[in-house]
């Protein structure tokens, strides 16, 4: 079967229902859609197991923060790849900022382990069932999740900079 964005989407909607596969579009040729956290693991497992699709490679996971997107501030992006069919797709899951809880993907993809730790480190996502959810890149004592938009980039102790010309 030739995999196209349309027929894969149709297949997924048929499997999981219209309400769970939403907002599908192709920004850069890669099919992108949104699902919710109840279905994400089942969806990825389905994509993994399905004989026609064989989406068996997790390319990357990335957290995104939309502070203006009230109620759905945090977004987790999963990008998957079917090496057999050279077909990529991108799945997004939104969660509220005060409740950033997602199920872990480590049972399907071993590589999700550190990606999830990174997402926890950067955005504060909590992955239930993750074997070792601690900060990965920053020091354990850090008190905030630095990639959230409200936190400044700079080290506040820097002295040798004059801000006149930068306007940042």
């Amino acid at each position: 079967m030739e995999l196209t964005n349309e027929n894969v989407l149709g297949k997924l909607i048929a499997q999981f229902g219209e309400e769970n596969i939403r907002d599908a579009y192709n920004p850069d040729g890669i099919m992108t859609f949104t699902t919710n956290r109840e279905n994400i693991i089942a969806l990825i497992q389905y994509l993994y197991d399905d004989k026609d699709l064989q989406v068996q490679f997790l390319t990357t996971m990335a957290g995104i923060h939309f502070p203006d997107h009230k109620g759905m501030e945090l977004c987790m992006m999963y990008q998957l790849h079917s090496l057999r069919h050279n077909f990529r797709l991108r799945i997004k899951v939104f969660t509220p900022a005060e409740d950033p809880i997602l199920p872990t993907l480590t049972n399907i993809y071993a590589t999700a382990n550190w990606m999830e730790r990174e997402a926890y480190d950067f955005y504060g996502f909590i992955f239930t069932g993750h074997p070792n959810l601690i900060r990965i890149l920053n020091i354990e004592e850090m008190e905030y999740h630095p990639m959230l938009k409200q936190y400044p980039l700079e080290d506040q102790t820097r002295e040798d900079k004059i801000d006149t010309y930068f306007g940042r």
Partner: protein
Amino acid sequence: MATDNKTADTDQLQEFRDNRDLKLQDKKNENLTTLNLGPTHPATHGIFQNILQMDGEVIMDAVPTIGYIHRAFEKIAERRPFYQITPLTDRMNYCSSPINNMGYHMTVEKLLGIEIPKRAQYIRVIMMELARISDHLICNSILGVDSGAFTGFLYVMQEREHIYDIYEEVCGARLTTNMGRIGGMERDLSPKALHLIGEFLKRFPKVWAEFEKMLTRNRIFIDRTVGVGAISAERALNYGFTGPNLRATGVDYDVRVMNPYSSYEDFEFEIPVGEKGDTYDRFLVRNEEVWQSLKIIEQAYKNLPEGSYHADAPHYYLPPKQEVYTSMEALIYHFKIVMGEIDAPKGEVYHSVEGGNGELGFYLISDGGRTPYRLHFRRPCFIYYQAYTEMIKGGQLADAILTLSSLNVIAGELDA
């Protein structure tokens, strides 16, 4: 689904920590010694730590810690205009910075919808393959150093100097090249650069053949590497391996072939694959890739098309200096581009290139501002380094070190 507890951030974290401590206590066997490999161990090229549980010289368990040179690339990228991110990407995989530069440029070009002329694409291919050679060169010769053969390293390092000479002629720097611009190259290949590339193509095969001769069939080296740090294709895919490390397990996944970019479809080359996914296979795959890269450079060098070296995109590509000094229109564009006042289109782009270590992906979200809204790097090192623990278990200390060098983990890319 865990929607019941509001936010158990601290509680859950505490729980995780307790669990981890318990696990560590279980492992605290009287007969095991704990060895702290890193963060400043000589064989960790770059900085990461592994706490090893050893039974004599055999590694029973390892706990990796990374983040010792975490530099917050992704955060910085959110605060910098598009063109200022190029120097950042240089410093990610510093062994092959042109690939990072150009991968990033292609991502932005995809977002902006710019078409790049053939000549610029060919120049990019030459530079990217040179970068791949210099990356593999370091990796394989460092493998030699860690197994005790220092001399081969210095032989190929001399060739790397010549690659740097070419970079220097193209962009004016050796390592952190900041090469190319969004929309093409910064400048055309100078005659001297072309000459240097030609020289390199003539001289390098001999040096590389000599290096191979020193190690490839030496029994001491074979004994040290065969079967060491092996990983099966299935596990490797599950761990998200890409690039030479995946190909050593026998999977012929290569972004250059699967999703060709920058005219890679014009060139003829093979994807070398290994069988067992051990250190020796990784060594051979990288060796062979160097030969293939040479082949690609040769083709690109011979068939270098005429034409412009940058896209005709006045909104994004800086006008030539001479025009800036004389023409008002060019000056205005110049100001706008440098001040970052030209809005990028809204959108979401993923683009990947075959980096020195595998699929180097850039996931870019633009909200139309002067900076990316979110720029996520898919860093191959970060993704596959977590398999290291599994790969060294049951092996000896010396094996662990060779496995580490043959994986070619670049700390800058690992920690980002």
